[in-house]
């Protein structure tokens, strides 16, 4: 039976963060499932405009970008979305849409995607009502997020399913594991430098990512490893830049820390190759796509042990989780990794292990199975 599927998102293409990346892969998967099954699939994005679409993920006819126009979205929802069979709400802030559609078309299956911090806080009336009465399934990106949904919002555990993120189907996956020469040159590095790498948004409003801890750890490690370098990447605001620079000079690591700012998708894999270790001892990752991206380039990972990151490293199989507040543990773990540099062969093995768990094909099958289950019940 043909189905009409709509994925609602706040923003998918015009900015790049974990949620946006996950939505791109999800849209890609749904687009291909729909093509196979001859279903009708659409991605509707409130803040993107139609020019923002990245054509590799889905065709222009499957995408509507409302360019911030809430009235445009409301109008189109009332006109078209009420004929949908499955509606996937990719952010809790779009709960009202779920409520409206469900009221007008009770048969429609409404799913919510729960990522991370956006659902780990108290909800307002509409969000609560949506969750309790109108939402058929909560797709959680990690077991941790699922546990939070049950604990904080008393969601029915049977309604919550875990769908771990997958590697972006268009990520450039390396086959050789050399450090890219152009990046070594760009930062005046030599292959002998031991490079620790963090990629995250550096926002003064989100101080839970743990890179401060890494800066402090580098301050200690530079004695043991004089050739150590710490590349801290991601967009930053000026307040945060000042704060980080102060910390850097306080720790005396001006020579070791390299702030790169925003990285382009095109060069992302090369940065993972440049590094010897990826470290992000964050406390509030819903899943942490960046971890699986690092692993997909054969880069070992250290993450925090108190959030969704655990799923990304398969509970220790692919990386090491530590207590993000424990500087000694962080220093010790980094030391262990740096003392035993990975060979190209080992990196390749790590890559294939990661792809075994987080590949797009399994991801697609998992989604299809969830849809089938919905209709089997």
């Amino acid at each position, binding site marked *: 039976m043909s189905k009409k599927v709509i994925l609602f998102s706040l923003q998918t293409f015009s900015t790049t963060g974990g949620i946006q990346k996950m939505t791109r892969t999800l849209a890609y998967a749904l687009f291909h499932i729909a093509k196979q099954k001859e279903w009708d699939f659409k991605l509707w994005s409130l803040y993107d*405009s139609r*020019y923002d679409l990245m054509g590799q993920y889905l065709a222009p006819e499957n995408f509507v970008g409302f360019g911030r126009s809430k009235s445009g979205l409301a109008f189109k929802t009332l006109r078209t979305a009420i004929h949908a069979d499955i509606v996937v709400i990719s952010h809790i802030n779009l709960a009202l849409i779920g409520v409206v559609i469900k009221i007008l078309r009770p048969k429609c299956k409404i799913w919510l995607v729960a990522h991370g911090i956006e659902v780990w806080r108290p909800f307002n009336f509409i969000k609560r009502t949506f969750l309790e009465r109108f939402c058929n399934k909560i797709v959680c990106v990690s077991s941790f997020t699922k546990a939070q949904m049950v604990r904080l919002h008393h969601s029915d555990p049977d309604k919550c399913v875990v769908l771990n993120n997958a590697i972006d189907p268009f990520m450039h996956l390396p086959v050789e594991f050399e450090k890219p*020469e152009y990046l070594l040159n*760009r930062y*005046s590095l030599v292959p002998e430098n031991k490079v620790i790498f963090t990629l995250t948004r550096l926002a003064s409003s989100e101080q839970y990512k743990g890179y401060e801890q890494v800066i402090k750890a580098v301050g200690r490690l530079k004695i043991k490893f004089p050739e150590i370098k710490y590349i801290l990447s991601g967009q930053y605001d000026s307040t945060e830049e000042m704060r980080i620079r102060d910390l850097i000079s306080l720790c005396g690591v001006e020579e070791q820390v390299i702030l790169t700012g925003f990285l382009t998708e095109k060069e992302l894999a090369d940065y993972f190759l440049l590094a010897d270790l990826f470290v992000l001892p964050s406390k509030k990752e819903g899943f942490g796509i960046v971890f699986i991206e690092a692993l997909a380039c054969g880069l070992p990972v250290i993450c925090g042990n108190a959030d969704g990151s655990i799923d990304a490293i398969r509970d220790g199989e692919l990386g090491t989780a530590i207590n993000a507040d424990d500087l000694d543990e962080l220093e010790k773990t980094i030391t262990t990794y740096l003392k035993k540099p990975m060979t190209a062969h080992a990196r390749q093995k790590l890559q294939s292990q990661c792809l075994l768990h987080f590949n797009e094909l399994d991801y697609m099958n998992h989604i299809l199975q969830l849809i089938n289950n919905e209709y089997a019940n």
Partner: protein
Amino acid sequence: MCRIAGIISKRLKAEETGEKVRIMCQALQHGGPDDEGIFCDQQTGLVFGHRRLSIIDLSRNGHQPMADADQRAWITFNGEIYNYIPLKQQLLALGAKFRSETDTEVIIQAYLHWGMAAFSKLRGIFAFALYDIERSLTYLVRDSSGVKPLYYHIENGQLSFASEVRALKKAGIATDADSAWKIRFLAYGHIPEPYTTLKNVYSLPKGEFLCWNHKKDTCDIHSYHVVQRKTPVIDAEEAREAVRSALTIAVTRQLIADAPIGVFLSGGIDSSLITLLANQQKHACLKTISIYFNEKAYDERMYQNLILKEIEGEKFAHLVRQKDFEEFLPRIIENMDIPTTDGINTWFISKYAHEDGLKAVLSGVGADELFGGYPSFSRIKHLKTLHGFEPMIFRAAKYFTSDRFKKVSFLAYNHPTADYLLLRGHYIPSDIAKILDTDLNYVEDILFSNKQLPYISNYNEEDAAWFETNLYMQNQLLRDTDVMGMSHGLEVRVPFLDEDFKRLAESITLDVRFDDRQPKKLLIDSFADILPRAIWDRSKMGFTFPLQQWMRENAEINDESLYQGKMAQSIVRNFKKNTMHWSKVFALYQIRMHE
């Protein structure tokens, strides 16, 4: 200095490649009148061409393409390396051997000693191709401020490049027009990088290099330049001191030349400052070039004279009359290489500088972008408020007849390009669709599918500076300045864009760097002791010609029958009634000339 060209092709016969490069060099002759050189490497199918304008080491030793003594690497280079002397000393200490006094040889040795890391050590304005024989790689490299142009074309495993688009066309390498160039041109008033008028001919982004692998016939493009931000300057006094010393260093560094060098003086703040600083170094040897008009409203002589009386060297002032404009307009359009609605001013002043015997001049380009000299710096703040409204309501603005209000319809697009075009654009998409008789959706797709722009959210002076520097200055001012200067064999140098000066300016916190009431206040305050008050305490003039009047009186531009379509003809009628800006009609006129 100079113009460069080249082809790497295993497909073409060696003679054929050589011939094409020769044709390209001929097409670029105006920018390199002093010498020509060709280098062929039959094995890889590589040919480099060079037209020389000698400024440093005027002897035959500066002949290009050039190789090191052991012929490990070949280069064809356009531009100047201002820090070549300290780099040469470092290289000598490492054991490098030099045969000439040129900066060109310093690039080769820097590469042979430091590899790709050499590129970011260079301070200057440059575009070059460097062939590393041993590793079988060729690099195309462009300076980090994008002052010197470099266009490339890749097709069927063949790479071609040149300093101007016309060369690629003349040699028959790229002949098809880019179907979207007219749309971009009408929206921006120029063709924004990386696009050109030709299909598959792109401009290499500033601060990036293209690496061609001769074994695989493939290439990668990456940036070599990293903006390593300095510790923020938060104190106003400290900022003034730093600006003063960094600009003095930049001007001194850029005065390096073995050929006669001068300064463009318009009478505004920026060129006055550069002139005064250059005078402190060159004294009687500094020549100044300025322009004046019979039209009183545009006559800046009063301000120019305030500066000139402080200057020791030779002063050249030239009158530009309407009849000069009439006489030279066809040549100006021919010299543009790519259509643009600006550059007429630079064309004339470069012409006179050349006639006065100069080979290089300093210009004040870049200060407005760094220190908030444009109205966009205050206007951008309103965009944030306006973006809070439902975008749909702005759609109706396209029905306004007044240009100013029409542009409000850009807000409906909610896109950084649309924000820029609201501040700086020429025609709105619906008018472009009508002028070109094409589909509006297509026009919108062309204009807004650009994914290279950053996400703008603060709408503060820093965002305005980003727009002005990376879009307006890059695509219009710098490109026009280079191509117009070069059409007279004149190199235009831009001290405000010196890497170290720019880095300093960008590290100054916004509240110190910009002032709501006085544009460029920090720059003015930094040089309060030498810059006369009358120069800065007046409304901004810019380097402006009386073009509204001249074009309205130009028979051809005003000939309605020249233009096709009702829309274009109505624009010309409005221009005649003086309710339309000259640049919009000039854009239509150039499109007509290209048909």
